[in-house]
């Protein structure tokens, strides 16, 4: 995209998605854009005037309203690009790049955006730990949780795990040592455990 005023940008450019973006990609791009131009966003601090932010936010809402609706999007494409053949050449989509990076290169510390909504069950925790190259013994030393209990947590050996009140404490310490959000890990692990038990 060469430099353009927000008013001159296509809806695809406003949301930084490609012309072939799926509804899921559009949704993600919209959420990302809303976060970027939120009133409390650090990323826009000192760069844009209030008026510019207001204009961009309006453009984001309008672009989303049109592109998320199949019928409206089709009419928009027809009126703006005449025929499918007239669609501009695809450039790598910014939103797609963001999504890919969040899933891959930025996931190695376990702090990354959980783009696929992966549940923090035992297997996921093990995967994060292994990606970090940390042995259970190290976690055990740090958290004072026995290696055996850590293995049970990772192997989802629910019947061997301690009572809930202790388990929550263990999950909290384990999540903190991996740099994950403890609250999220506790909630998702317990939910997954209860669902598995009820099956």
């Amino acid at each position, binding site marked *: *995209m*060469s*430099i*353009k*005023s*927000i008013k001159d940008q296509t809806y695809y450019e406003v949301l*930084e998605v490609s012309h072939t973006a799926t509804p899921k990609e559009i949704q993600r791009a919209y959420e*990302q*854009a809303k*976060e*970027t131009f939120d009133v409390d*966003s*650090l*990323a*826009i*601090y*000192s*760069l*844009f*005037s209030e008026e*510019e932010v207001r204009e*961009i936010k309006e453009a984001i809402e309008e672009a989303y309203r049109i592109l998320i609706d199949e019928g409206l999007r089709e009419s928009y494409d027809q009126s703006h690009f005449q025929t499918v053949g007239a669609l501009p050449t695809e450039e790598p989509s*910014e939103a797609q790049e*963001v999504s890919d*990076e*969040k899933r891959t*290169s*930025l996931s*190695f*510390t376990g*702090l*990354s*955006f*959980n783009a696929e909504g992966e549940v923090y069950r035992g297997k996921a925790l093990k995967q994060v730990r292994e990606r*970090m*190259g*940390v042995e259970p013994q190290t976690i055990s030393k740090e958290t004072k949780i026995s290696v055996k209990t850590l293995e049970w947590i990772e192997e989802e050996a629910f019947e061997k795990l301690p009572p809930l009140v202790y388990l929550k404490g263990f999950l909290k310490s384990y999540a903190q040592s991996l*740099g994950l*959000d403890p609250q999220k890990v506790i909630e998702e692990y317990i939910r997954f455990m209860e669902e598995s038990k009820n099956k």
Partner: protein
Amino acid sequence: MGRNRVGQDQASHRKMIWTIGGGKGGSGKSFITTNVGICLSKLGIRVVLIDADLGGANLHTFLGISPPALSLSDFIKKRVSHLHEVLIPTAVPNLQLLTGAQDLLNAADAKSVQKRKLVRSIQSLDSDTALVDLGAGNSLSVLDFFLISDGGILVVTPEPTSIENTYRFLKSAFYRRLKQSVSSSSVKALIDGAMDRKNEMGIQNPYDLIKVARGMDEGDAQRMIEEIETFHPNLILNQVRSKKDIEIGFSIRSACLKYFGIRLHYLGYVVYDQDVSHSIRRRRPLVLENPRSRASQCVMEIASKLADSHKMSARFKGDEHQEH
């Protein structure tokens, strides 16, 4: 000069020169320069770390070595005949240190010819890549060095003050790059005026600037657009503590695209880690002292990306040689 994705100007045969600047004092530029340099050298790339921090050159301290007796000044003032004589060896294989570059950048009369001479001197060193710590300076010499390197890297922490300073640095570099690309003196003056948001011409952003410039000199306006399209600075977010912090990097990238029309490359992030300050206090680089720490892993990931672009660049140069 050719262009590449992660860098800016890429000359034909030379080694990659990365400059680390922008942001604010204390955002971790020297820490990142040292540790990324070590990671690259561990990957088999011959690295020279260059200290050009006007605010306080101390890369040697990060490496745990005493203040060096020789510096670039000794070469410039002809006290030694070859630049490699002022290179300081380190305990890390493939890694050398050059200090004193700040003296040249700091000189009030540092002309562009001197800066280019510095680049040529660095190019002549027997190494594959150079990492230059520019510190938090915002002077014209620092901006020029940032712009003439192969890749400028901004290090920012997820705090308003750090982001504000980074944008200030980026704006200065951006407008300086535009100014250097145009020939008409009236357009040059227009760019100077546009730096001030309260300018009388009502120019609020780069888009307004191009619009007004188009009315003055179509050729210059076109050259400015080309400069914008080929300007790809890199970003490292340091001291992140949460997923939300990591995502600020993506938001900064998006904000830069909307405001400047430039594609910033988000190289990666480094998590906040107590081990970092411990390693600095012990004067032992983190990636050597505690390579398994989370911050070390982040630094390694960033170094791998730079190594990849180094390989791409080498391949690109190889192709060029074959073509000729």
